[in-house]
């Protein structure tokens, strides 16, 4: 975290017709000044947001589930809705009833990722921690270890890799091509794409919103630019609504993928 942190474009006084070019936001909007530093360790805003998300998830489900009632009310109703969604629509959909032991894992992934994503549009936070690849990567790392261990435990070391590399029912010659691809996919591509899919979606979404926000600010003034500024702002509003959907969708997708990988480790596919 030694990168130079630039002042955000929106904080500058740069406007259309004031003699400076459009301060295009770049990777700099994903870098933050440390809030505090302990030696070489810099504590930054994404870390703070991840910790706040952690507290929010635990806090909410504590209030919902700590003293569950037979007849639910308030937070418990909402929490149960979330629990049943993960259990029935993600876990049982992919694994059936034998996936029930993994529901807490999937549940944690879904809500932790979702809350971190939603931070993108919460005022003052306004940054999705998941747009820093480290946060998706850490979660995917846990998923990766989980499905590898489960696969080797359930199918044996040789069996697991054999099932992975040699899906049955294909002409033998194909395996020369297929086996390395499958191995690559199982060991590297799967976790990589899983992390990058979440990261890139949140990264792009945040970048879009920032770009149009900066644009709206840059175009603002007592001239024709005000019209473009208003349009740009409207796009920000629309994008925010769109992001709200993408945030939930990406949380759902990463959870669904985790469920599907765990499922393929529980028993050989095909």
């Amino acid at each position, binding site marked *: 975290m030694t990168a130079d942190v630039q002042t955000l474009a929106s904080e500058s006084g740069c406007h259309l017709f004031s003699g400076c070019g459009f301060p295009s936001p770049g990777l700099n909007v994903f870098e933050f000044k440390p809030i505090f530093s302990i030696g070489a360790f810099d504590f930054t805003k*994404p870390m703070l947001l991840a910790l706040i998300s952690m507290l929010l998830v*635990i806090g909410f489900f504590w209030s919902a*589930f*700590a003293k569950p009632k*037979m007849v639910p009310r308030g937070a418990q109703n909402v929490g149960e809705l979330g629990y049943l969604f993960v259990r029935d629509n993600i876990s049982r959909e992919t694994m059936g009833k034998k996936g029930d032991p993994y529901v807490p*894992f999937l549940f944690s992934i879904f809500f932790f990722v979702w809350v971190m994503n939603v931070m993108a549009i919460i005022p003052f936070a306004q940054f999705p921690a998941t747009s820093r690849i480290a946060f998706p990567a850490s979660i995917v790392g846990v998923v990766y270890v989980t499905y590898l261990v489960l696969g080797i435990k359930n199918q044996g070391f040789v069996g697991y890799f054999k099932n992975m590399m040699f899906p049955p029912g294909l002409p033998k010659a194909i395996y020369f091509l297929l086996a390395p691809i499958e191995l690559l996919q199982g060991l590297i591509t799967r976790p990589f794409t899983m992390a990058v899919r979440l990261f890139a979606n949140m990264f792009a979404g945040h970048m879009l919103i920032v770009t149009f926000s900066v644009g709206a600010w840059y175009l603002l003034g007592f001239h024709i630019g005000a019209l473009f500024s208003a349009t740009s702002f409207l796009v920000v509003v629309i994008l925010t609504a769109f992001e709200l959907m993408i945030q939930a969708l990406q949380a759902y997708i990463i959870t669904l993928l985790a469920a599907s990988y765990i499922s393929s480790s529980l028993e050989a596919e095909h």
Partner: protein
Amino acid sequence: MIFLANSEEKMNPLLPPLDEIIIGGVAFLIVFGFLWKMLLPKIAKTLADRTDAIEGGLKRAEEAQAEAQAELERYRDQLTEARREAGRLTEDAREQGAVAIAEMRAEGQRIKDEIVTAGHTQIEADRNQAQNALRQDVGRLAVDLASRIVGESLEDEARQRRVVDRFLEELEAKASATATSEKVR
């Protein structure tokens, strides 16, 4: 992605910094730990209990329904049985009544026959008795009269007349005495 970065900076958004990985991983594991060990088992148990309670309630209701149905069947059976019993009793009573009436009628007929027979017998006996008595009386009277007539030796007509008159008077007196005694009897 890399080309989005300002060229002079060494920022690569695909390279995760270690400190963020650690914080993210730890945060996730803490979330997972709380949910896995503390919170989700509770809600899973509550959901299972609720399902049980609902299913139990439904089962109990079903049982009650079945019991009520069985009771109803039983009452219906009893009612049918009672109706049949009543019908049977009525039939029995009717038969018994008919038998009794027939018996009574036969008895009455018998008694009537007896009485009639007895009457006839009595009448016959009385008639025979009367006939016998009459026959004896007539014979005796005839003999009496004949002997009187013969005893008077037919002296004269006046005497004959007296004899006859006297005889008739005696007869009358005897008849009235008999009549009196008949009435008394």
